[in-house]
């Protein structure tokens, strides 16, 4: 066992040598001051970082941070003042280069100094709320260089000059610009904004104001827009290359305002090259450019839209009220379709299919299509033409496309019930004369109408198709039951259900004996299987094929109307017949008879009859003979058609009257429906609701609605409220 003394180790705080030397601070500072000088003089390599750091550390530790800091400020300021002089001395283009070079030097120096003084940065500076070293360095640079009297304005004018030169087409040193601008940004956003950006925007505004004025005097609209677009892109590119990205929105605003917003109206309305001309000439590229540029300014797009709308309305109005185009309904509708296609394409290609423009297009069409009260009739005639021959040979997809386009026009109609009436008439004629080119197309259109307007609109139309099919079956059954009739004339009967087909006055005529007998046989056959029904022959709607032999032996097959057949068959038993004799024998109504005789006696190429005298009109004293000299290069000759035609004035009036009559019960039904659910409602709301309910069929006239209300009051369906005269009450 050793007798070792136990030694207690005590750890004592490391004690510095307490410095009592008053000159200590001054001496240390001088070392550091010298170091700063060396750094600025590019002599830093000879310095010991560790030593300098320690010196600075000691100063701060011994409570000489204040001295260190103020010394730093003084020294740095002195150096910067020197630097400032050297920059001021630089000539011309070298100015910026010198500035940049010195800036880089300063940055490097600053970093080194900051590293050396790191301890102060972390302790003394936060405690005494002083500016940290790096930031201090920037501020001193800003105050002594950038804001120095001799440099500040020169810097700005140099930068602006360079931008201006670039704008006028010169190539500038973009790298230099970028560095300079970056310097300003590093010095603080307010420096960038006040010392560069604000003046830059002002000068740019002035520049573009002048330039746009120059352009607008000498360029047409399309060229001007091209130039504006180029300038705009230039500015955006400039930002990307050497300016703060936050300036982009500001400078583009300037260009947009000066070049576009200020001249918007003049551009749009420029004679011979403005918006309207672009629309007329389908200038998709120019229009697209205008759209993109105007999109950037307030009210730009709405201006384009408004001008387009008023132009479209004007053009459309002229189209529909032009007397010439009204002469040919098919042409009329085709022109509408073409116009729509044109604008559809423009909106798609140039206006990026914007919904607001689509709406403007639709509302314009709705406006002018209804200016012509014959639009519904014409659209039906257009469809009729297509379904009779226009769609022959057209592929199924193309048929759908055409029908869809027609549906678009249909949607614009306010008086859809008028269309329905005409469509029914025309469809009836097509079906009965077997003249439809494609059954599928017919049905496809019915389906589209049903989707658009509901079942009620098309149920009768579908009934017509059903009747045609049923009639075929009936005919088969008839001939199956009467095989002995196979030798005689072939009868084809279409049995039409009264409610589904357009109403016709039932006037019959005297059929030739053979036909009359045959028809009777059919009637008894039909009524045998369908008791309780009533059949009436519609002799004004039928057709007949007759084989005829003329004087010189020429044989022809004549396709005629039933009336014409009645007249012609008379000549089997007589060579000469007077008008009166024909009238008596056939009992065809006078106007129809005259038309029928005229088509057979006065039309070149169809004159199977000869008339004395040879006048153009049919007189009641005329005499008729078979035209033995009749010739035609065709074996089959078609005389007299039951083609749908544009209505004559009196027919038009009649149809219009029928439509008005049909509307009355519809209005009343709407009123009753509304009043039944609301019980009590004031006058204006009744009008509004009724109009809304009937909108899909026609535009209800408030006066007409009022009349119907009064009629309902009289019939005690409604009453007026005894206190408030404006209210109506439903009477259960």
């Amino acid at each position, binding site marked *: 066992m050793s007798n070792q003394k136990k030694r207690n180790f005590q750890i004592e705080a490391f004690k510095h040598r307490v410095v009592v030397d008053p000159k200590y601070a001054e001496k240390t500072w001088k070392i550091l001051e010298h170091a700063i000088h060396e750094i600025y003089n590019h002599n830093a390599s000879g310095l010991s970082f560790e030593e300098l750091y320690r010196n600075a550390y000691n100063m701060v530790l011994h409570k000489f941070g204040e001295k260190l800091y103020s010394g730093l400020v003084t020294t740095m300021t002195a150096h910067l003042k020197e630097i400032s002089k050297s920059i001021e001395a630089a000539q011309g283009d070298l100015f910026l280069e010198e500035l940049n070079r010195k800036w880089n030097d300063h940055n490097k120096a600053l970093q080194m100094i900051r590293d050396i003084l790191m301890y102060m940065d972390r302790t003394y500076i936060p405690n005494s709320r002083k500016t940290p070293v790096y930031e201090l360095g920037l501020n001193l640079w800003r105050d002594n260089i950038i804001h120095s009297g001799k440099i500040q304005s020169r810097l700005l004018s140099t930068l602006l000059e360079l931008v201006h030169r670039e704008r006028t087409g010169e190539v500038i040193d973009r790298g230099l610009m970028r560095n300079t601008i970056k310097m300003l940004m590093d010095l603080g956003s307010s420096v960038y904004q006040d010392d560069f950006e604000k003046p830059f925007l002002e000068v740019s505004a002035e520049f573009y104001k002048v330039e746009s004025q120059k352009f607008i005097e000498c360029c047409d609209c399309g060229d001007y827009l091209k130039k504006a677009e180029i300038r705009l892109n230039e500015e955006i590119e400039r930002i990307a290359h050497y300016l703060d990205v936050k300036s982009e929105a500001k400078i583009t605003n300037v260009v947009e305002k000066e070049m576009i917003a200020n001249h918007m109206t003049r551009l749009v309305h420029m004679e011979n090259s403005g918006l309207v001309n672009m629309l007329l000439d389908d200038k998709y590229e120019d229009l697209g450019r205008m759209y993109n540029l105007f999109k950037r300014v307030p009210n730009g797009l709405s201006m384009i839209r408004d001008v387009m709308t008023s132009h479209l309305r004007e053009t459309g109005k002229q189209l529909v009220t032009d007397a010439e185009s009204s002469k040919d309904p098919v042409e009329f509708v085709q022109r509408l379709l073409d116009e729509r296609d044109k604008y559809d394409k423009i909106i798609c290609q140039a206006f990026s299919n914007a919904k607001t423009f689509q709406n403007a297009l639709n509302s314009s069409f709705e406006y002018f299509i209804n200016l012509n009260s014959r639009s519904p009739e014409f659209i039906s005639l257009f469809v009729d033409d297509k379904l009779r021959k226009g769609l022959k040979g057209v592929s199924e997809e193309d048929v759908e496309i055409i029908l869809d386009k027609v549906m678009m026009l249909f949607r614009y109609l306010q008086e859809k019930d008028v269309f329905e009436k005409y469509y029914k008439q025309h469809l009836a004629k097509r079906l009965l004369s077997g003249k439809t080119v494609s059954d599928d197309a017919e049905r496809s259109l019915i389906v589209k109408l049903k989707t658009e307007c509901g079942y009620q609109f098309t149920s009768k139309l579908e009934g017509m198709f059903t009747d045609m099919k049923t009639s075929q079956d009936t005919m088969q059954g008839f001939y199956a039951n009467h095989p002995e009739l196979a030798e005689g004339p072939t009868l084809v009967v279409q049995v039409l259900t009264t409610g589904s087909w357009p109403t016709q006055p039932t006037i019959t005529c005297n059929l030739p004996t053979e036909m009359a007998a045959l028809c009777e046989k059919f009637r008894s056959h039909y009524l045998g299987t369908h008791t309780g029904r009533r059949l009436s022959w519609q002799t004004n709607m039928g057709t007949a094929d007759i084989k005829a032999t003329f004087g010189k032996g020429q044989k022809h097959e004549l396709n005629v109307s039933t009336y014409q057949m009645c007249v012609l068959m008379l000549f089997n038993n007589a060579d000469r017949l007077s008008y009166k004799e024909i009238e008596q024998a056939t009992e065809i109504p006078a106007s129809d008879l005259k038309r029928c005789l005229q088509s057979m006696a006065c039309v070149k190429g169809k004159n199977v009859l000869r008339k004395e005298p040879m006048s153009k009109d049919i007189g009641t004293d005329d005499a008729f003979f078979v035209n033995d000299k009749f010739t035609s290069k065709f074996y089959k000759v078609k005389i007299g058609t039951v083609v749908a035609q544009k209505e004559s004035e009196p027919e038009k009036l009649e149809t219009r009257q029928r439509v008005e009559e049909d509307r009355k019960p519809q209005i009343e039904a709407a009123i009753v429906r509304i009043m039944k659910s609301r019980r009590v409602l004031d006058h204006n709301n009744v*009008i509004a609701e009724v109009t809304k309910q009937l909108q899909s069929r026609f535009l209800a006239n408030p006066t007409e609605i009022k009349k119907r209300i009064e009629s309902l009051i009289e019939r005690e369906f409604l009453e007026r409220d005894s206190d408030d*005269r404006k209210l109506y009450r439903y009477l259960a």
Partner: protein
Amino acid sequence: MPLVCLSSPEGIEALCSDLGVDYTDVRILMLAWKLKAEKQGYFTQDEWQTGLKALGVDSLTKLKKALPELEKEVEEPSNYEDFYIYAFQYCLTEEKQKSVDIESICELLNLVLGVQFRPQVDSLVEYLKVQNDYKVINADQWINFLRFCKEISFPDLENYDATQAWPLILDNFVEWMREKQS
């Protein structure tokens, strides 16, 4: 109670001459209203007795004296509309009749509204005679004539609004008046 044979128009004519009042005088109509007479030109025994009681008279002389008071009673705002409507219904002589012909309406307007609304009645009557949209007037149109006179300033027609619930015949009348005035 005076025994008057009133179950005939002649009886009423006799009554009128006794009262010293013309058969077509509006006061006879007022009397009919007071009596709640159902049939034009006739007073039933019941109506006569109940009515006279209501008037508080029991002799022809007293009845004659009560006529001015009756007039005042009718002209009271609370009674006037009732009387006005009664006047129309009194003209519905046939069963299920709902309208009155234009001629009669013109006379009735003169009789009933002529004193209080002379200018309106004159114009309205003139219009009714020249227009040919309507050959008869129904109860709804009739009551609105009164409202028209009461509510619409005449002859400027400033506050008339055709988009409101006025019957169409009045819309047309106003249009006709405005055309005449321009």
